[in-house]
C-alpha cells in the first residue's frame, strides 16, 4: 500500500515537472534577427493573419523599428502639438520651410523656391511654390490652393496650433504656383513658425472629401481628424500606413517624393513605455533605435560595439519659479532672496546629474537660439548668497515649500532636481519642503499663479527667441510669477524690439542685453538645458536630431 501511494505521489510530481517543461518549451524562440530586418519572417506572420492584415511590401528590404514612448494624441497637423508630433509630420508632410538635418538656427525653403520675397513693410511674404511636389496617396499635384486651404483650416480650427497663425492677417493664392501671406505686424520668427506642423500642406481635395473644411465654422464643422489619424494627406518623404495609438505607427516610403531621402523603406514605431525594456530590446536587436532611454541606460550601452549612442541638443529648459507676490511666495518674493537662490545653486552638479550634454544657459534663451549666452563658470557663490539672505532680513533662513511633479524631462526626474535644490539651499539656511503632485495638479497651480516656489520646464513651440518672450514681465509666464509688465520697462521694450527686428545681428545684440538683465533680476532661476541621448544600432547612419523634427526619419540610411 505504501509503495502504491509513493508511486502515485511520484506521478503527481512528474506531472508537475511536465507542466513546467511545457511552459519552458512552448515559448522558446530564437532571438530576433539582430541585423537588417527579415521581411520574409514578417510576411510569415502577416501573410495568413486574420482578416486583411497589412502585409509588408515584398520589395521592402529596409525596415527600421523604433522603440519610443510617444505622447501622440492625433496626427492631424491642424491639431497636433505634442512633443513627437513633428517627428511624424516632418516625415509625412511638406511645409513651406523646414529645418533640415540637425540645424535649428534657420529653416530652409522646402516647398518654396529660393526666389521668395518679403516686402518693405516686412509683413507681406510672396512665396513661389515648386512645381514637382505631388501628394503621396492621391497623386494630385500640390498647388497654392492646397496651401491656402491648409492655413485657413488651422486659422479656423482654433486648436493647439492656432498660436502659429494668429499673426496672419490674410492669405491669398493669386495663381496656382504662388501664395501670398500678409501679417498683421512684422514677425521675425515667422519663417521658423512656417517650419512647424501648423503649416503642413494637406491635399485639400482629399481632406474635404473626408470631412475637412477651412470655413469659419471649422472648429465645430471639421471632422477630418479621424481620417488624418489614419492617412497622411501630404507630400512628404513617407506616407502613413497605420496608427494604433499607444501601440504602433507604420510609415512607408513615398516613391513620388520630389526631394532626397534615405533608404529606409518602412518604419515601425513601437510604443515601449519602459526605458529598461527599450534598452534590452536594442541590445538584443529587436529594435533598431531606442529613443526613450535614461542617462543610466545610455551608460550601459557605452561599450556595446553594435550600438551607437547619439546626442542631440534640445531646447527644453528647466527652471525654478519664485512667486513675486509676497502673499503667495512669502520670502521668495523678495528680489534679494531670489538672487540668493540663484547664487546658491550648484549648477555643475545639476548638469552632472542630468548626464553628458546638459547645458547651462544664462537664463531664458536656450543655447542655439539667437544671441543665447551661457551662464559663466563659477557663478555659484555661497558667501554672496548668504550676504544676500542677510540683506533681505533672512540671515537665519526660512522654510518654504517647493512644488514639483511626478514627471521627467528627457529622462530627468523633476523630483531629483527638487531634491538637489533642497540640498543646495539648505547651505544658506533655506529649509525646503518638497511637495510632489501629479503633473496636472502642478500645471493647474502654475497656470493660476498659486505656487510659491516651483520646478517647471519650458519646451518651445518653435525654435525662436520670440517663443521665449513668455518669460518677460507681463507675459504668460511672467504673469504666473506675478511679475507685471511695469516691473521692468527696459526688458519689455527690448523684448518688443526683438520680436519684430529682421536684422539677425541686431536681434542677437538685444537678445544678449535682455539675458544679462534677466540673469540677476527675475523671479526665475534657470537650472539647465536638457540633452537628448538615444541609441541606434550600428547599421544605421545619417541620424540627425533637431528639437523640432526630433530624429529626422527622412535621412536615415541602413547599411
Amino acid at each position, binding site marked *: 500500500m505504501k509503495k502504491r501511494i509513493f508511486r502515485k505521489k511520484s506521478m*503527481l510530481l512528474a506531472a508537475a515537472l511536465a507542466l513546467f517543461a511545457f511552459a519552458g518549451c512552448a515559448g522558446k524562440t530564437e532571438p530576433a534577427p539582430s541585423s537588417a530586418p527579415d521581411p520574409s519572417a514578417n510576411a510569415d506572420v502577416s501573410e*495568413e493573419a*486574420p*482578416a486583411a492584415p*497589412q502585409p509588408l511590401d515584398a520589395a521592402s528590404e529596409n525596415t527600421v523599428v523604433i522603440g519610443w514612448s510617444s505622447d501622440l494624441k492625433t496626427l492631424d497637423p491642424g491639431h497636433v502639438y505634442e512633443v513627437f508630433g513633428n517627428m511624424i509630420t516632418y516625415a509625412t508632410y511638406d511645409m513651406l520651410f523646414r529645418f533640415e538635418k540637425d540645424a535649428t538656427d534657420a529653416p530652409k525653403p522646402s516647398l518654396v523656391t529660393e526666389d521668395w520675397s518679403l516686402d518693405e513693410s516686412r509683413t507681406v511674404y510672396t512665396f513661389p511654390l515648386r512645381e514637382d511636389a505631388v501628394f503621396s496617396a492621391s497623386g494630385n499635384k500640390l498647388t497654392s490652393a492646397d496651401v491656402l486651404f491648409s492655413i485657413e483650416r488651422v486659422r479656423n480650427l*482654433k*486648436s493647439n496650433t492656432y498660436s502659429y497663425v494668429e499673426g496672419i492677417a490674410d492669405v491669398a493664392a493669386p495663381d496656382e504656383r504662388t501664395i501670398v501671406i500678409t501679417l498683421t505686424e512684422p514677425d521675425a520668427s515667422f519663417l521658423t513658425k512656417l517650419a512647424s506642423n501648423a503649416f503642413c500642406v494637406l491635399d485639400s481635395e482629399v481632406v474635404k472629401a473626408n470631412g475637412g473644411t477651412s470655413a469659419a465654422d471649422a472648429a465645430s464643422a471639421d471632422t477630418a481628424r479621424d481620417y488624418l489619424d489614419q492617412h497622411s494627406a501630404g507630400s512628404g518623404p513617407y506616407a502613413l500606413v497605420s496608427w494604433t495609438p499607444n501601440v504602433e505607427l507604420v510609415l512607408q516610403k513615398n516613391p513620388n517624393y520630389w526631394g532626397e531621402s534615405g533608404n529606409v523603406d518602412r518604419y*515601425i514605431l513601437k510604443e515601449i513605455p519602459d526605458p529598461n525594456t527599450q534598452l534590452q530590446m536594442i541590445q538584443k536587436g*529587436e529594435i533598431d533605435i531606442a529613443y526613450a532611454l535614461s542617462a543610466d541606460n545610455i551608460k550601459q550601452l557605452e561599450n556595446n560595439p553594435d550600438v551607437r549612442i547619439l546626442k542631440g541638443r534640445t531646447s527644453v529648459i528647466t527652471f525654478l519659479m519664485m512667486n513675486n507676490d509676497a502673499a503667495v511666495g512669502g520670502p521668495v518674493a523678495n528680489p534679494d532672496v531670489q538672487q540668493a537662490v540663484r547664487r546658491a545653486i550648484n549648477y555643475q552638479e545639476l548638469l552632472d546629474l542630468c548626464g553628458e550634454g546638459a547645458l547651462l544657459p544664462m537664463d531664458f534663451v536656450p543655447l542655439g537660439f539667437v544671441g543665447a549666452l551661457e551662464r559663466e563658470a563659477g557663478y555659484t557663490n555661497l558667501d554672496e548668497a548668504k550676504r544676500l539672505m542677510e540683506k533681505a532680513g533672512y540671515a537665519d533662513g526660512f522654510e518654504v515649500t517647493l512644488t514639483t511633479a511626478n514627471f521627467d524631462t528627457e529622462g530627468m526626474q523633476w523630483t531629483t532636481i527638487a531634491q538637489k535644490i533642497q540640498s543646495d539651499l539648505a547651505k544658506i539656511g533655506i529649509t525646503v519642503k518638497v511637495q510632489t503632485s501629479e503633473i496636472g495638479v502642478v500645471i493647474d497651480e502654475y497656470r493660476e499663479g498659486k505656487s510659491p516656489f516651483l520646478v517647471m520646464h519650458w519646451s518651445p513651440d518653435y525654435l525662436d527667441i520670440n517663443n521665449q518672450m513668455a518669460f518677460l514681465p507681463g507675459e504668460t509666464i511672467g504673469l504666473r510669477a506675478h511679475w507685471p509688465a511695469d516691473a521692468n520697462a527696459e526688458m519689455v521694450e527690448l523684448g518688443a524690439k526683438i520680436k519684430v527686428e529682421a536684422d539677425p545681428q541686431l536681434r542677437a545684440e538685444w537678445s544678449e542685453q535682455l539675458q544679462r538683465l534677466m540673469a540677476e533680476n527675475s523671479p526665475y532661476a534657470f537650472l539647465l538645458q536638457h540633452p537628448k541621448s538615444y541609441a541606434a544600432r550600428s547599421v544605421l547612419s545619417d541620424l540627425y536630431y533637431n528639437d523640432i523634427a526630433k530624429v529626422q526619419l527622412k535621412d536615415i540610411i541602413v547599411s
Partner: protein
Amino acid sequence: MLRYTVRRIALMFVLLIGVSLMVFLISNLVPSDPVAANLSQTAMSDPQVVAVFKEKWGLDKPILQQYWIYLQHLLKGDLGVSIRTGQPVAADLMRYFPATVELSVFAMLIAIVFGILFGVLSAVFRDKPLDQVVRGISVSGVSIPSFWFSLLMLYVFFYKLGWFPGPGRLNARAPTPVGGTGFYVLDSILSGNFALLSDALSHLILPAVVLGFFTMGLITRQTRSNLLEVASTDYIRAARAKGMSETRVIVRHALGNALIPVITVAGMGFCNLLGGMVFVEKIFAWPGIGQYAYLSATTLDFPAICGVSLLVAANYVVINLLIDILYGIIDPRTRYQ
C-alpha cells in the same frame, strides 16, 4: 435560479449607473483641469482656443449637467468620445481590452493549473521538503511586487538566456494584424496561421507567468488548506477504510469539495488581473486596458476614465454572478430558491 440571475443582471445596471456617477464626481473633484492636460501652454493662454475646447467637450457646463448629458448617452449605449484620442470610448475599449483579456486568461490558466497542482502536492506531501518548497513559491507569489518580478523575468529569460521573445504581443518587426477579434491566439487558430499562433503564444508566456504568479500563490494556499481539511473528514476516512487508492480518494472524492472555495479566489483573481495590470503592461509593452486607463487618468479624460471604470465594474459583477451560478452547479445546496 433564473429569476435570481435576471434580478442580478438588472441590479448590475443600477450598480453601473452608481459607479458612473461616483467616477464622474470623483474625477471632477481632482484639483486639476482637463484644459491644462490637453492644451499646450501657449494655447492655454488664448481665451478663444480655451473657449472652443471647453465648448467642444461640454466642459463649459455645470458638472451635474455634464453628468446628465453623459448619462443620457450612456443609457443609449454610447460611452462618449475620448478627449485624448478623439475616438469613441467604446471603440478604444474594444481595441485595448482583447489584449488584456487574452493575457489575463493565460495568466489565470497558469495560476489555476499550477496553483491546484502545487496545492495538491503540498497537501499530499504535508510537512515534507516538497511542501516547504511549494510554500516558498506560493508565499513569493503573493509577496513579490509584480513590477519587480516583471523586470526580473524579462532580464533573465529574454535578455540573459534568450529563451523567450521580448516585450510586445508579437515580434517587434511583425506588423500588427488588422481586423479579426483582437485576440491574436484565437484569430490565428481560426485562420490557421500557425506562425502567428506561435509568435503570439511565445510572447504571452512571460507576462502571463508574472501576472498569474500572485493568484497562483493564493490558489496554492487555499487548495492545500481545503484539501487537508477535507482529508480529515469522515467520508474520506471511510473511503480510505474501504481500501480505495490514495489518488482515487484525492482526485475523485476530496479534491472536488476542496476546490469549491478556490473558485471564488480564482474569480476575484481574474477580476484583479483585468483591472490592475498597469505596471506589467508597461514593462512588457503590452497594449492593454491598464495603459489606456493610466493615460486617460493622467490627461483627465473623463469619458475614458468613466468607460474604463464601468468596464472593470461590469467585469466584477459578471464574474461574481458566474461564480454564484457555478457554485450552484457544483454544490446544489448553495442554489438560490
